[in-house]
Protein backbone atom coordinates (compact mmCIF):
# COMPACT_ATOMS: atom_id res chain seq x y z
CA UNK A 1 0.00 0.00 0.00
CA UNK A 2 2.75 2.39 1.00
CA UNK A 3 4.54 1.75 -2.29
CA UNK A 4 1.41 2.31 -4.35
CA UNK A 5 0.79 5.55 -2.51
CA UNK A 6 4.35 6.65 -3.22
CA UNK A 7 3.99 5.90 -6.89
CA UNK A 8 0.90 8.07 -7.00
CA UNK A 9 2.72 11.08 -5.61
CA UNK A 10 3.47 11.77 -9.25
CA UNK A 11 1.17 10.83 -12.09
CA UNK A 12 1.47 7.44 -13.71
CA UNK A 13 3.34 7.57 -16.99
CA UNK A 14 2.07 6.15 -20.25
CA UNK A 15 5.39 5.12 -21.73
CA UNK A 16 8.92 5.30 -20.37
CA UNK A 17 11.07 4.07 -17.49
CA UNK A 18 10.52 4.01 -13.73
CA UNK A 19 13.55 3.68 -11.45
CA UNK A 20 12.49 2.67 -7.97
CA UNK A 21 14.34 1.90 -4.73
CA UNK A 22 17.03 4.53 -5.18
CA UNK A 23 18.72 5.19 -1.81
CA UNK A 24 17.25 8.32 -0.25
CA UNK A 25 18.92 11.49 -1.48
CA UNK A 26 20.69 9.85 -4.44
CA UNK A 27 18.14 10.69 -7.17
CA UNK A 28 19.99 13.78 -8.37
CA UNK A 29 23.18 11.75 -8.74
CA UNK A 30 21.24 9.16 -10.71
CA UNK A 31 20.00 11.85 -13.10
CA UNK A 32 23.57 12.98 -13.58
CA UNK A 33 24.77 9.41 -14.12
CA UNK A 34 22.14 8.83 -16.78
CA UNK A 35 22.94 12.18 -18.40
CA UNK A 36 19.33 13.24 -17.82
CA UNK A 37 20.12 16.27 -15.70
CA UNK A 38 20.66 18.56 -18.68
CA UNK A 39 18.25 16.82 -21.06
CA UNK A 40 15.20 19.02 -21.63
CA UNK A 41 13.62 16.86 -24.33
CA UNK A 42 11.84 14.36 -22.04
CA UNK A 43 9.63 14.95 -18.99
CA UNK A 44 11.27 13.62 -15.81
CA UNK A 45 9.48 13.32 -12.44
CA UNK A 46 11.37 12.98 -9.22
CA UNK A 47 10.20 11.84 -5.79
CA UNK A 48 12.65 12.03 -2.92
CA UNK A 49 12.69 10.74 0.66
CA UNK A 50 9.41 8.86 0.56
CA UNK A 51 8.77 6.04 3.06
CA UNK A 52 9.73 2.55 1.93
CA UNK A 53 9.08 -0.76 3.69
CA UNK A 54 12.25 -2.25 2.26
CA UNK A 55 14.61 0.70 2.68
CA UNK A 56 13.13 3.03 5.31
CA UNK A 57 13.04 5.83 2.77
CA UNK A 58 13.85 6.02 -0.90
CA UNK A 59 13.82 8.10 -4.08
CA UNK A 60 11.96 7.35 -7.32
CA UNK A 61 12.51 8.68 -10.86
CA UNK A 62 10.12 8.47 -13.79
CA UNK A 63 11.37 9.22 -17.26
CA UNK A 64 8.63 9.63 -19.86
CA UNK A 65 8.76 8.50 -23.46
CA UNK A 66 12.18 7.00 -23.14
CA UNK A 67 13.18 3.39 -22.50
CA UNK A 68 16.59 3.36 -20.92
CA UNK A 69 18.87 0.63 -22.20
CA UNK A 70 20.47 -2.02 -20.03
CA UNK A 71 23.95 -0.49 -20.50
CA UNK A 72 22.65 2.96 -19.49
CA UNK A 73 21.01 1.45 -16.43
CA UNK A 74 24.10 -0.50 -15.41
CA UNK A 75 25.73 2.85 -14.64
CA UNK A 76 23.21 3.14 -11.82
CA UNK A 77 25.06 0.49 -9.87
CA UNK A 78 27.64 3.14 -9.01
CA UNK A 79 25.15 4.91 -6.68
CA UNK A 80 22.04 2.75 -6.55
CA UNK A 81 23.05 -0.91 -6.89
CA UNK A 82 19.73 -2.22 -5.47
CA UNK A 83 17.41 -0.10 -7.56
CA UNK A 84 14.61 -1.78 -9.52
CA UNK A 85 13.65 -0.68 -12.98
CA UNK A 86 10.41 -1.02 -14.90
CA UNK A 87 9.86 -0.25 -18.55
CA UNK A 88 6.34 1.08 -18.97
CA UNK A 89 4.30 0.71 -22.15
CA UNK A 90 0.65 1.85 -22.31
CA UNK A 91 0.51 2.42 -18.54
CA UNK A 92 1.58 -1.13 -17.66
CA UNK A 93 4.88 -2.71 -16.74
CA UNK A 94 6.19 -4.30 -19.92
CA UNK A 95 9.61 -5.32 -18.62
CA UNK A 96 11.48 -5.45 -15.32
CA UNK A 97 15.21 -4.93 -15.34
CA UNK A 98 17.92 -5.30 -12.74
CA UNK A 99 21.07 -3.25 -12.38
CA UNK A 100 24.21 -5.26 -12.93
CA UNK A 101 27.62 -3.70 -12.66
CA UNK A 102 29.36 -6.96 -13.57
CA UNK A 103 33.05 -7.44 -12.89
CA UNK A 104 34.21 -4.34 -14.69
CA UNK A 105 32.92 -0.85 -15.53
CA UNK A 106 34.18 -0.12 -19.01
CA UNK A 107 34.19 3.32 -20.61
CA UNK A 108 31.68 4.77 -18.16
CA UNK A 109 33.96 6.81 -15.88
CA UNK A 110 37.54 7.98 -15.83
CA UNK A 111 39.89 6.90 -12.99
CA UNK A 112 39.99 9.52 -10.21
CA UNK A 113 43.76 9.31 -9.63
CA UNK A 114 45.41 12.42 -11.07
CA UNK A 115 48.61 10.63 -12.14
CA UNK A 116 46.97 7.64 -13.84
CA UNK A 117 48.01 6.99 -17.45
CA UNK A 118 44.34 7.31 -18.50
CA UNK A 119 44.33 11.02 -17.59
CA UNK A 120 45.73 11.75 -21.04
CA UNK A 121 42.49 12.16 -23.05
CA UNK A 122 44.28 11.15 -26.27
CA UNK A 123 45.18 7.67 -25.04
CA UNK A 124 42.78 5.41 -26.93
CA UNK A 125 42.44 2.27 -24.77
CA UNK A 126 39.16 1.92 -22.80
CA UNK A 127 38.73 3.25 -19.26
CA UNK A 128 38.40 0.18 -17.07
CA UNK A 129 37.47 0.01 -13.40
CA UNK A 130 37.43 -3.42 -11.76
CA UNK A 131 34.77 -4.24 -9.18
CA UNK A 132 36.78 -5.67 -6.28
CA UNK A 133 33.92 -5.72 -3.74
CA UNK A 134 30.18 -5.21 -4.08
CA UNK A 135 29.21 -4.44 -0.48
CA UNK A 136 30.32 -1.77 0.03
CA UNK A 137 31.03 -1.12 -3.62
CA UNK A 138 34.80 -0.92 -4.16
CA UNK A 139 36.36 -0.17 -7.53
CA UNK A 140 39.98 -0.11 -8.62
CA UNK A 141 41.45 1.16 -11.86
CA UNK A 142 42.59 -1.71 -14.07
CA UNK A 143 45.72 0.24 -15.02
CA UNK A 144 46.98 2.11 -11.94
CA UNK A 145 45.14 -0.13 -9.43
CA UNK A 146 44.21 2.83 -7.25
CA UNK A 147 41.00 2.45 -5.22
CA UNK A 148 38.34 4.89 -6.43
CA UNK A 149 36.57 7.52 -4.38
CA UNK A 150 32.91 7.00 -5.32
CA UNK A 151 31.87 10.58 -4.51
CA UNK A 152 34.58 11.91 -6.79
CA UNK A 153 33.92 9.29 -9.46
CA UNK A 154 30.52 10.72 -10.27
CA UNK A 155 32.24 13.85 -11.60
CA UNK A 156 34.39 11.76 -13.93
CA UNK A 157 31.62 10.37 -16.10
CA UNK A 158 32.58 10.05 -19.73
Amino acid sequence: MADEHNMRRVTAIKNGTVIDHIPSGQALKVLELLSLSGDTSVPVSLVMNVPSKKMGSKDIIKVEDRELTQSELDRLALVAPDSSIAIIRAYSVAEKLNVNLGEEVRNVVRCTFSNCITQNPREPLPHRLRVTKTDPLTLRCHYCQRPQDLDELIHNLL
Partner: protein
Amino acid sequence: MKGLITMDDLTNDDIHSILADAERLLPVARGETYLPLLQGKILGNLFFEPSTRTRMSFETAMKRLGGDVVNLGDVKTSSVVKGETLFDTIQMVDGYTDIIAMRHPRQGAARYAQDAARVPILNGGDGAGHHPTQTMLDLFTIQQSHGTLEGLTVILAGDLRYGRTVHSLSHALVRFGCRLIFASPELLRMPAEIVEDLREHGADVTETEDLLGNINQADVVYMTRIQKERFADEDEYAKVAGAYKLHARDLDNAKSEMVILHPLPRVDEIHPSVDSTRHARYFEQAFNGVVARMALLCRLLNIEVPAEIAGGDA
Protein backbone atom coordinates in the same frame (compact mmCIF):
# COMPACT_ATOMS: atom_id res chain seq x y z
CA MET B 1 52.38 -15.01 -17.86
CA LYS B 2 52.75 -12.49 -20.67
CA GLY B 3 54.64 -9.61 -19.07
CA LEU B 4 55.67 -8.60 -15.57
CA ILE B 5 53.68 -5.55 -14.47
CA THR B 6 53.17 -6.21 -10.76
CA MET B 7 54.28 -9.03 -8.45
CA ASP B 8 50.75 -10.44 -8.78
CA ASP B 9 51.81 -11.66 -12.22
CA LEU B 10 54.08 -14.21 -10.49
CA THR B 11 53.12 -17.12 -8.25
CA ASN B 12 55.40 -18.06 -5.36
CA ASP B 13 56.51 -21.07 -7.42
CA ASP B 14 57.36 -18.74 -10.34
CA ILE B 15 59.42 -16.59 -7.96
CA HIS B 16 61.33 -19.59 -6.59
CA SER B 17 62.04 -20.97 -10.03
CA ILE B 18 63.14 -17.59 -11.48
CA LEU B 19 65.46 -17.05 -8.49
CA ALA B 20 66.91 -20.55 -9.06
CA ASP B 21 67.50 -19.66 -12.74
CA ALA B 22 69.20 -16.44 -11.62
CA GLU B 23 71.47 -18.37 -9.26
CA ARG B 24 72.64 -20.61 -12.13
CA LEU B 25 73.19 -17.58 -14.38
CA LEU B 26 75.63 -15.91 -11.95
CA PRO B 27 78.80 -16.97 -13.86
CA VAL B 28 77.25 -15.61 -17.06
CA ALA B 29 76.42 -12.31 -15.36
CA ARG B 30 80.00 -12.08 -14.10
CA GLY B 31 81.32 -12.64 -17.61
CA GLU B 32 83.02 -15.92 -16.65
CA THR B 33 80.95 -17.90 -19.14
CA TYR B 34 79.34 -16.84 -22.40
CA LEU B 35 75.88 -18.28 -22.89
CA PRO B 36 74.05 -16.73 -25.87
CA LEU B 37 70.57 -17.92 -24.88
CA LEU B 38 68.97 -14.75 -26.27
CA GLN B 39 70.88 -14.53 -29.53
CA GLY B 40 68.71 -12.95 -32.21
CA LYS B 41 66.37 -11.36 -29.66
CA ILE B 42 65.97 -7.60 -29.29
CA LEU B 43 65.02 -5.74 -26.11
CA GLY B 44 63.39 -2.32 -26.46
CA ASN B 45 64.42 -0.05 -23.60
CA LEU B 46 61.70 2.58 -23.15
CA PHE B 47 62.68 4.87 -20.31
CA PHE B 48 60.41 7.91 -20.21
CA GLU B 49 62.07 8.89 -16.90
CA PRO B 50 65.72 8.98 -15.88
CA SER B 51 67.23 5.66 -14.84
CA THR B 52 70.79 4.50 -14.39
CA ARG B 53 70.82 1.09 -12.75
CA THR B 54 67.59 -0.31 -14.13
CA ARG B 55 68.28 0.69 -17.74
CA MET B 56 71.94 -0.34 -17.64
CA SER B 57 71.28 -3.64 -15.93
CA PHE B 58 68.60 -4.56 -18.48
CA GLU B 59 71.06 -3.72 -21.23
CA THR B 60 73.87 -5.69 -19.60
CA ALA B 61 71.57 -8.67 -18.95
CA MET B 62 70.48 -8.77 -22.58
CA LYS B 63 74.02 -8.46 -23.93
CA ARG B 64 75.51 -11.05 -21.55
CA LEU B 65 72.97 -13.49 -23.00
CA GLY B 66 73.89 -12.64 -26.60
CA GLY B 67 70.83 -10.46 -27.29
CA ASP B 68 70.65 -6.91 -28.54
CA VAL B 69 69.08 -3.68 -27.28
CA VAL B 70 67.43 -0.68 -28.90
CA ASN B 71 66.85 2.44 -26.84
CA LEU B 72 64.13 5.07 -26.96
CA GLY B 73 66.86 7.57 -26.18
CA ASP B 74 66.24 10.89 -24.57
CA VAL B 75 62.52 11.57 -24.24
CA LYS B 76 63.19 15.25 -25.02
CA THR B 77 64.32 14.38 -28.53
CA SER B 78 61.93 11.48 -29.24
CA SER B 79 58.46 11.55 -30.76
CA VAL B 80 57.00 11.67 -27.24
CA VAL B 81 57.80 15.36 -27.05
CA LYS B 82 55.74 15.86 -30.23
CA GLY B 83 52.73 14.55 -28.33
CA GLU B 84 52.75 10.91 -29.37
CA THR B 85 50.52 8.79 -27.15
CA LEU B 86 51.97 5.88 -25.19
CA PHE B 87 49.69 3.64 -27.26
CA ASP B 88 51.30 4.77 -30.53
CA THR B 89 54.85 4.57 -29.13
CA ILE B 90 54.17 1.01 -28.00
CA GLN B 91 52.70 0.04 -31.38
CA MET B 92 55.93 1.17 -33.02
CA VAL B 93 58.39 -0.45 -30.60
CA ASP B 94 56.26 -3.59 -30.48
CA GLY B 95 57.04 -4.06 -34.16
CA TYR B 96 60.77 -3.55 -33.71
CA THR B 97 61.45 -5.76 -30.69
CA ASP B 98 60.81 -9.08 -28.95
CA ILE B 99 60.38 -7.69 -25.44
CA ILE B 100 60.11 -4.22 -23.89
CA ALA B 101 61.46 -2.85 -20.59
CA MET B 102 59.87 0.43 -19.66
CA ARG B 103 59.73 3.14 -17.01
CA HIS B 104 57.10 5.86 -17.12
CA PRO B 105 56.18 8.76 -14.80
CA ARG B 106 52.46 7.89 -14.92
CA GLN B 107 51.04 5.15 -12.73
CA GLY B 108 49.40 2.31 -14.65
CA ALA B 109 51.49 3.01 -17.76
CA ALA B 110 53.02 -0.47 -17.78
CA ARG B 111 49.65 -2.27 -17.60
CA TYR B 112 48.39 0.07 -20.32
CA ALA B 113 51.40 -0.73 -22.49
CA GLN B 114 50.90 -4.46 -21.95
CA ASP B 115 47.28 -4.17 -23.11
CA ALA B 116 48.51 -2.36 -26.23
CA ALA B 117 51.45 -4.66 -27.00
CA ARG B 118 51.97 -8.06 -28.57
CA VAL B 119 55.36 -8.57 -26.93
CA PRO B 120 55.90 -8.93 -23.15
CA ILE B 121 56.41 -5.77 -21.09
CA LEU B 122 58.76 -5.64 -18.10
CA ASN B 123 57.69 -2.86 -15.76
CA GLY B 124 60.77 -0.91 -14.68
CA GLY B 125 58.70 1.51 -12.59
CA ASP B 126 55.39 3.33 -13.21
CA GLY B 127 54.94 6.53 -11.20
CA ALA B 128 54.63 5.66 -7.52
CA GLY B 129 53.18 2.29 -8.54
CA HIS B 130 55.24 -0.85 -8.97
CA HIS B 131 58.79 -1.91 -9.69
CA PRO B 132 58.66 -5.71 -9.80
CA THR B 133 62.04 -6.35 -11.46
CA GLN B 134 63.65 -4.45 -8.57
CA THR B 135 61.66 -6.66 -6.21
CA MET B 136 63.01 -9.78 -7.89
CA LEU B 137 66.59 -8.63 -7.40
CA ASP B 138 65.79 -7.64 -3.80
CA LEU B 139 64.33 -11.09 -3.16
CA PHE B 140 67.35 -12.70 -4.80
CA THR B 141 69.69 -10.74 -2.50
CA ILE B 142 67.64 -11.60 0.59
CA GLN B 143 67.60 -15.28 -0.33
CA GLN B 144 71.33 -15.19 -1.03
CA SER B 145 71.94 -13.71 2.44
CA HIS B 146 69.53 -15.79 4.51
CA GLY B 147 69.09 -18.93 2.41
CA THR B 148 65.32 -18.41 2.52
CA LEU B 149 62.56 -15.86 1.99
CA GLU B 150 60.27 -17.39 4.60
CA GLY B 151 59.38 -15.85 7.93
CA LEU B 152 61.95 -13.05 8.07
CA THR B 153 61.52 -9.76 9.93
CA VAL B 154 62.07 -6.93 7.48
CA ILE B 155 62.26 -3.22 8.27
CA LEU B 156 61.43 -0.93 5.35
CA ALA B 157 62.62 2.57 6.18
CA GLY B 158 62.53 6.09 4.79
CA ASP B 159 60.16 7.26 2.07
CA LEU B 160 57.46 4.60 2.04
CA ARG B 161 54.86 6.86 0.48
CA TYR B 162 56.37 7.59 -2.90
CA GLY B 163 58.91 4.75 -3.05
CA ARG B 164 57.61 2.23 -5.58
CA THR B 165 60.34 -0.29 -4.71
CA VAL B 166 58.97 -0.68 -1.18
CA HIS B 167 55.41 -1.06 -2.46
CA SER B 168 56.24 -4.01 -4.69
CA LEU B 169 58.62 -5.55 -2.15
CA SER B 170 56.07 -5.42 0.70
CA HIS B 171 53.48 -7.24 -1.38
CA ALA B 172 56.00 -9.94 -2.22
CA LEU B 173 57.39 -10.39 1.30
CA VAL B 174 54.01 -10.97 2.94
CA ARG B 175 53.44 -13.85 0.53
CA PHE B 176 56.41 -15.55 2.18
CA GLY B 177 55.12 -14.93 5.70
CA CYS B 178 57.57 -12.15 6.48
CA ARG B 179 56.87 -9.73 9.32
CA LEU B 180 57.10 -6.11 8.15
CA ILE B 181 58.08 -3.06 10.16
CA PHE B 182 57.46 0.22 8.32
CA ALA B 183 59.70 2.95 9.76
CA SER B 184 59.05 6.37 8.26
CA PRO B 185 58.26 9.98 9.09
CA GLU B 186 54.52 10.62 9.42
CA LEU B 187 54.49 12.52 6.12
CA LEU B 188 56.00 9.61 4.20
CA ARG B 189 54.04 6.68 5.65
CA MET B 190 53.15 3.68 3.53
CA PRO B 191 49.87 4.52 1.69
CA ALA B 192 46.89 3.39 3.78
CA GLU B 193 45.41 1.31 0.96
CA ILE B 194 48.63 -0.73 0.72
CA VAL B 195 48.76 -1.35 4.50
CA GLU B 196 45.10 -2.37 4.33
CA ASP B 197 45.77 -4.74 1.43
CA LEU B 198 48.69 -6.33 3.23
CA ARG B 199 46.67 -6.82 6.43
CA GLU B 200 43.81 -8.32 4.42
CA HIS B 201 46.32 -10.91 3.24
CA GLY B 202 47.06 -11.71 6.87
CA ALA B 203 50.32 -9.78 7.10
CA ASP B 204 51.93 -8.87 10.42
CA VAL B 205 52.62 -5.16 9.80
CA THR B 206 53.84 -2.57 12.31
CA GLU B 207 54.06 1.14 11.54
CA THR B 208 56.51 3.25 13.52
CA GLU B 209 58.59 6.43 13.30
CA ASP B 210 61.43 4.72 15.17
CA LEU B 211 64.01 3.05 12.92
CA LEU B 212 67.01 2.74 15.23
CA GLY B 213 65.01 1.33 18.18
CA ASN B 214 63.77 -1.57 16.04
CA ILE B 215 67.00 -2.57 14.30
CA ASN B 216 67.78 -5.34 16.79
CA GLN B 217 64.69 -7.29 15.63
CA ALA B 218 65.49 -7.18 11.94
CA ASP B 219 66.83 -9.83 9.56
CA VAL B 220 66.76 -7.27 6.75
CA VAL B 221 66.79 -3.47 6.85
CA TYR B 222 65.69 -1.98 3.54
CA MET B 223 66.67 1.69 3.38
CA THR B 224 65.30 4.26 0.93
CA ARG B 225 66.18 7.84 0.17
CA ILE B 226 64.11 10.66 1.61
CA GLN B 227 63.90 13.44 -0.95
CA LYS B 228 64.24 17.04 0.18
CA GLU B 229 61.57 18.20 -2.24
CA ARG B 230 58.90 16.25 -0.36
CA PHE B 231 59.17 18.73 2.54
CA ALA B 232 57.94 22.31 2.83
CA ASP B 233 61.37 23.63 3.80
CA GLU B 234 64.92 22.48 4.35
CA ASP B 235 64.80 22.75 8.17
CA GLU B 236 61.84 20.42 8.34
CA TYR B 237 63.67 17.98 6.06
CA ALA B 238 66.85 18.10 8.15
CA LYS B 239 64.88 17.51 11.35
CA VAL B 240 63.04 14.48 9.99
CA ALA B 241 65.61 12.89 7.72
CA GLY B 242 68.23 12.64 10.49
CA ALA B 243 66.20 9.89 12.16
CA TYR B 244 66.45 7.73 9.03
CA LYS B 245 70.20 7.65 8.60
CA LEU B 246 72.33 4.65 9.46
CA HIS B 247 75.86 4.84 10.85
CA ALA B 248 78.03 1.84 11.72
CA ARG B 249 77.66 2.64 15.42
CA ASP B 250 73.88 2.17 15.14
CA LEU B 251 74.39 -1.49 14.31
CA ASP B 252 75.97 -2.67 17.59
CA ASN B 253 72.80 -4.45 18.70
CA ALA B 254 71.87 -5.81 15.29
CA LYS B 255 71.63 -9.57 14.70
CA SER B 256 74.93 -10.76 13.24
CA GLU B 257 73.28 -12.04 10.04
CA MET B 258 71.17 -8.90 9.52
CA VAL B 259 71.65 -7.36 6.06
CA ILE B 260 71.14 -3.80 4.87
CA LEU B 261 69.75 -3.23 1.38
CA HIS B 262 69.12 -0.04 -0.57
CA PRO B 263 67.78 0.35 -4.14
CA LEU B 264 70.39 3.13 -4.68
CA PRO B 265 71.29 5.87 -5.36
CA ARG B 266 71.90 6.74 -1.73
CA VAL B 267 72.59 10.30 -0.64
CA ASP B 268 73.41 10.30 3.05
CA GLU B 269 70.94 7.82 4.54
CA ILE B 270 73.69 5.17 4.81
CA HIS B 271 76.98 6.51 6.15
CA PRO B 272 80.11 5.18 4.35
CA SER B 273 81.17 3.64 7.70
CA VAL B 274 78.45 1.02 7.13
CA ASP B 275 79.98 -0.09 3.82
CA SER B 276 82.72 -2.12 5.49
CA THR B 277 80.43 -3.86 8.01
CA ARG B 278 79.23 -7.43 7.44
CA HIS B 279 75.70 -6.06 7.15
CA ALA B 280 76.17 -4.04 3.96
CA ARG B 281 74.71 -5.78 0.90
CA TYR B 282 73.63 -2.88 -1.34
CA PHE B 283 76.43 -3.12 -3.88
CA GLU B 284 75.90 -6.88 -4.31
CA GLN B 285 72.23 -6.04 -4.60
CA ALA B 286 72.95 -3.64 -7.48
CA PHE B 287 75.00 -6.33 -9.24
CA ASN B 288 72.16 -8.81 -8.70
CA GLY B 289 70.03 -6.53 -10.86
CA VAL B 290 71.78 -8.01 -13.87
CA VAL B 291 71.33 -11.65 -12.94
CA ALA B 292 67.70 -11.24 -11.82
CA ARG B 293 66.86 -9.46 -15.08
CA MET B 294 68.66 -12.14 -17.10
CA ALA B 295 66.43 -14.76 -15.52
CA LEU B 296 63.30 -12.65 -16.12
CA LEU B 297 64.19 -11.98 -19.77
CA CYS B 298 64.63 -15.72 -20.36
CA ARG B 299 61.35 -16.53 -18.59
CA LEU B 300 59.27 -13.99 -20.51
CA LEU B 301 60.85 -14.96 -23.83
CA ASN B 302 60.15 -18.66 -23.06
CA ILE B 303 63.83 -19.57 -23.19
CA GLU B 304 64.78 -22.30 -20.77
CA VAL B 305 67.85 -21.71 -18.61
CA PRO B 306 69.93 -24.94 -18.67
CA ALA B 307 69.98 -26.97 -15.46
CA GLU B 308 73.80 -27.01 -15.58
CA ILE B 309 75.86 -24.07 -16.72
CA ALA B 310 79.55 -24.65 -17.24
CA GLY B 311 82.14 -22.36 -15.78
CA GLY B 312 80.70 -21.56 -12.44
CA ASP B 313 79.58 -23.20 -9.28
CA ALA B 314 77.24 -20.48 -8.07
